[in-house]
């Protein structure tokens, strides 16, 4: 099974599929190459000489740093898409919304209390899944009516975690 990453370097876009044994870029197989990543220092053997780069994160922005130059970088992985679906999975509306778990996971932290007013996209809780803390945000403005989970609870995909009104 392949993991998919969509990479945008400056204005160039690439689809990268990677499995344990194979790498495909824009549909073409690319055989294994010498790639080293230590700390955030990356080095890849491109023919005779190696190329070094660093992926720099500055707040929400990603930059590729190579040869002293910066290139804007955008990375979207399967996981990101899953998270996106997760946030669409929450049933929104002007009044009354249910926040469900988009994937099985562990409730790490609950940021709201019953009776609390929340705005759309306010953080509601953190669900740990896929070795990452994933923030679940409110799909709508509202008031927290019910919290159906406790911190440290495991939740199944689709189970209701918070109800708004």
């Amino acid at each position: 099974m392949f993991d998919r990453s969509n990479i945008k370097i400056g204005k160039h876009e690439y689809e990268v599929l990677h499995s344990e044994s194979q790498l495909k870029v824009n549909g073409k197989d690319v055989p294994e190459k010498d790639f080293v990543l230590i700390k955030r220092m990356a080095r890849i053997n491109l023919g005779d000489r190696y190329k070094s780069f660093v992926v720099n994160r500055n707040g929400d922005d990603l930059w590729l740093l190579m040869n002293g130059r910066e290139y804007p970088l955008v990375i979207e992985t399967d996981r990101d898409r899953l998270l996106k679906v997760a946030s669409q999975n929450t049933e929104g509306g002007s009044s009354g919304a249910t926040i469900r778990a988009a994937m099985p996971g562990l409730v790490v932290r609950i940021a709201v209390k019953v009776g609390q007013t929340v705005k759309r996209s306010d953080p509601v809780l953190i669900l740990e899944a896929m070795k990452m803390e994933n923030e679940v945000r409110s799909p709508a403005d509202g008031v927290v009516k019910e919290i159906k989970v406790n911190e440290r609870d495991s939740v199944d995909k689709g189970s209701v975690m918070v109800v708004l009104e």
Partner: protein
Amino acid sequence: MKSVLIANRGEIAVRVARTCREMGIRTVAVYSDVDKNSLHVLEADQTVALGGSTPAESYLDQAKIIDAAKRTGADAIHPGYGFLSENAGFAERVEKSGLIWIGPPASAITKMGSKTEARALMIDAKVPVVPGTRGAVSNAQEAIEFAKKAGFPVLLKAAAGGGGKGMRVVRNEADLEAALGAAQREAKSAFGDDAVYVEKYLEEPKHIEVQIFADKHGNAIYLGERECSMQRRHQKIIEEAPSAAVSPELRKSMGETAVMAAKACGYANAGTCEFLLDKTGAYYFLEMNTRLQVEHPVTELVTGLDLVRLQIEVARGNKLPIKQEDVKLRGHAVEVRVYAEDVLGGFLPSTGKLSLWRPPSGPGLREDTGMYEGSEISRFYDPMISKLIAFGENREAAIDRMLRALSEYFIAGVMTNIGFCKFVLERDEFRSGNFDTGTIERILLPAYREYVENCEVQPDWLAAAIALANRQYYTDVTFFKRSMADVQSGWKTAGRAAALNNHG
């Protein structure tokens, strides 16, 4: 001399402190508010906060600095380069306060510090100088008169200047008035003195400078030359010792001229005579820098000497420990000034935090820096990250070593001139030694722009590598770094991670 206050910041403050420590001398650092987490603060034995963030409020405030020296019991002041290093008034004030000034006598600074006075002195001493105005011009009309007589282009220069500040090339009359105003404003802000004079602008000369040293007993020697023609916007980027264009005979001639110049103004301590060298081998006195130079390490590597140690010995009143015949040059040294800047965006400074910083090391390599991983490149000061100096048995080996070193340098958080310097070091223009002070802007910068635009980076590989790097970033627990801000709010973290990946 048991204790030295270092009236500077950044790499030169660290560099001076290092030699002081080696000599058993206590050091006092001063620092502005912006610099409170700077390396020069960590490396000193004692520190004094000057407050403020602009140079005027801190490193240029003479009273604050002398007061700091008094309060900490320092008995000498080392000014580094820039800031107050060539301010004769300050040198005098230091000595009047009963402190030792680690630099030349105020009288020599005055004579040489005013470029106009220095020119007059050199003319009297039969040292060839570039044609120019007798002194500073008081208005645009004076400048225009000289320029018409000598012919355009002309060069406007701050009388108190250095480091390219307050300097402008003017190629026609129409631009002169505006350029003069700009140069005067820059000079005022950088040196507290808006005096600007005008010289004939020599096309395609080499900038060669000679390091001299004099003691207070009338002894003076030269320590060979430095090749400083690789400049952008009048600021040196790559320096070498020796120069590929200087023969042993020329070295001796320029060296002896430089010593004559030093003796003519009653010089003591470290100084540098800057010359323009034309293609016929003729050279012209340009100015004398009455302080340590940024690029002094290349001289240290080829002579085996420590110039700051010599400065301190001479300031103590000791005789120079070596004679001219003891100065033996060996090998070749190249210095690259690594700047946080956007080269193709007009060399504009790139501010930010050095979120990753892995400097090169190993054989034949020296790094002088005031930075560490996590340091801020602020908008208040020169965006120099470090000076990298490579030594080799000969020029080729030193340049190849520098290229190797630059290829090891990992920096994240700011843009740097490293890619550009690598490009320059590989080009024939540089390798041949046949370059002048205009080569970068005339040839190398346009060539670099073209190279970058047409660069074939095998983007498929790069994309694949980035995808793998990104995956490793989220699975490898070893090296992930976050700030305390994230610890305090788990929400911010998670939000950031999600946002990060939703970016596409």
